[in-house]
């Protein structure tokens, strides 16, 4: 019984933590972008503008919840829920600290890949159900982009699995006791980070939204909290990918002096900031450039990584 309560507590902490960080990112991203663009960002509402999140929430909740009459209503409503669900699920398998993990699946990594692959449905269906040309174009781009990068994301992690000999994320973290995988799996890391950006369709790979060409792409027709779900989904995605980088390549919760959970948070926070820095500095590539990068650079790079890692492991016996 106490085990049950403990588990529920962990679930609560993880869920609450993820959502808290995601909503905090609304403020953080704008502040950081301001910082890197020589301005202040939101600094008026509450201390350092932190209540801006609250103001935005009030706004997004009280906006008219509009379903276009030409849209496919059922799909239109479900789509934003799907993205939040599929991104929240992988948080269950992430080991935030030795004891702070909802469940240590022995196929944790595959679970993560599977769930993030499901995310593409949300975006594609949102684009399609809106019955708007911009949305549809956005949805199509999202489908192609996410499916392509899904491949390299998976391949880039093969090295990690080879080194740790397990799909369980807990084991993978433990396997980095001596050396963080970011050193031996440097190429894996690079591919994973880029694929992660593309998976969450964050700038510079936000072609499905591409406001300069497609208005707002797949969520052009969304308003109110449905739009808010996509918005939160995006930040959850950023948090998830950052947490995964930490777990897979930077020793997860491991670190000296400080408690493990704090180390995990510090590392994750660093990568979140890195995501935002990418947005602040890089322009959006053309769509063909995105696909060319994927299939002509990332694919060979990740395959090479597997071959070399496998070769070294074989040579070591």
């Amino acid at each position, binding site marked *: 019984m106490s085990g049950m309560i403990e588990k529920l507590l962990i679930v609560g902490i993880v869920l609450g933590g993820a959502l808290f960080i995601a909503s905090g990112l609304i403020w953080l991203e704008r502040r950081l972008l301001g910082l890197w*663009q*020589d*301005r202040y960002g939101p600094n008026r509402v509450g201390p350092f503008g932190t209540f801006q999140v609250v103001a935005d929430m009030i706004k997004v909740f009280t906006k008219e919840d509009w379903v276009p009459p030409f849209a496919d209503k059922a799909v239109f409503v479900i789509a934003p829920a799907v993205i939040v669900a599929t991104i929240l699920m992988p948080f269950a398998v992430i080991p935030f600290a030795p004891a702070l993990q909802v469940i240590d699946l022995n196929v944790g990594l595959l679970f993560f890949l599977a769930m993030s692959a499901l995310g593409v449905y949300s975006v594609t269906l949102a684009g399609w159900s809106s019955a708007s040309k911009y949305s549809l174009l956005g949805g199509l781009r999202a489908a192609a982009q996410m499916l392509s990068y899904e491949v390299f994301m998976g391949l880039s992690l093969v090295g990690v699995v080879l080194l740790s000999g397990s799909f369980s994320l807990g084991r993978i973290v433990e396997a980095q006791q001596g050396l963080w995988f970011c050193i031996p799996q440097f190429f894996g890391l690079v591919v994973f980070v880029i694929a992660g950006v593309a998976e969450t369709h964050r700038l510079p790979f936000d072609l499905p939204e591409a406001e300069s060409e497609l208005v707002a792409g797949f969520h052009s027709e969304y308003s109110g909290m449905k739009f808010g779900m996509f918005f939160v989904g995006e930040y959850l995605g950023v948090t998830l990918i950052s947490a995964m980088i930490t777990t897979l390549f930077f020793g997860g919760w491991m670190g000296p002096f400080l408690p493990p959970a704090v180390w995990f948070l510090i590392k994750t926070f660093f990568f979140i900031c890195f995501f935002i820095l990418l947005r602040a*500095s890089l322009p959006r590539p053309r769509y063909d450039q995105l696909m060319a990068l994927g299939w002509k650079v990332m694919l060979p790079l990740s395959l090479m990584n597997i071959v070399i890692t496998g070769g070294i492991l074989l040579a070591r016996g």
Partner: protein
Amino acid sequence: MISIIRTIWKVFLHQFRKRVTIQYPEERASLAPRWRGRIILSRDPDGGERCVACYLCAAACPVDCISLQATEDENGRRYPEFFRINFSRCIFCGFCEEACPTYAIQLTPDFEMAEYNRRNLVYEKEDLLISGPGKYPEYNFYRIAGLAISGKDKGEAENESAPVDVKGLMP
């Protein structure tokens, strides 16, 4: 590849720069005299309304937010019977000032005209008319135009000769 990393690094370094944001309303920017803000109607040096209601500002306005009606007083001076600017539509492009042949309509360095009610952004002539000549202290249209008004007969404008004696036969 290198350039991308360089870009990221350079952007990263921007966090150590000075902020360019001016914290209005605690801090205020200094506005140039040619700043395009609230529109006013000025007066001649002799105190008369400068606007002669020629409709050019209304025609030049890309958002069609100026409307007026010309009329003439007993002295032969033309002036607007009403002159209305809908500032809730105005984009402060300054085309009206550029079009104005009498320097009557001018844009001023004042932008603090926000209202809670859009209706209050509709300015009538009495809201627009100021008591001075604005940016052009010297100009007086009727001293140059050939039209006779009271106090300035034909031939008394700048660079005009006295009216022709139609019945004279001298060459």
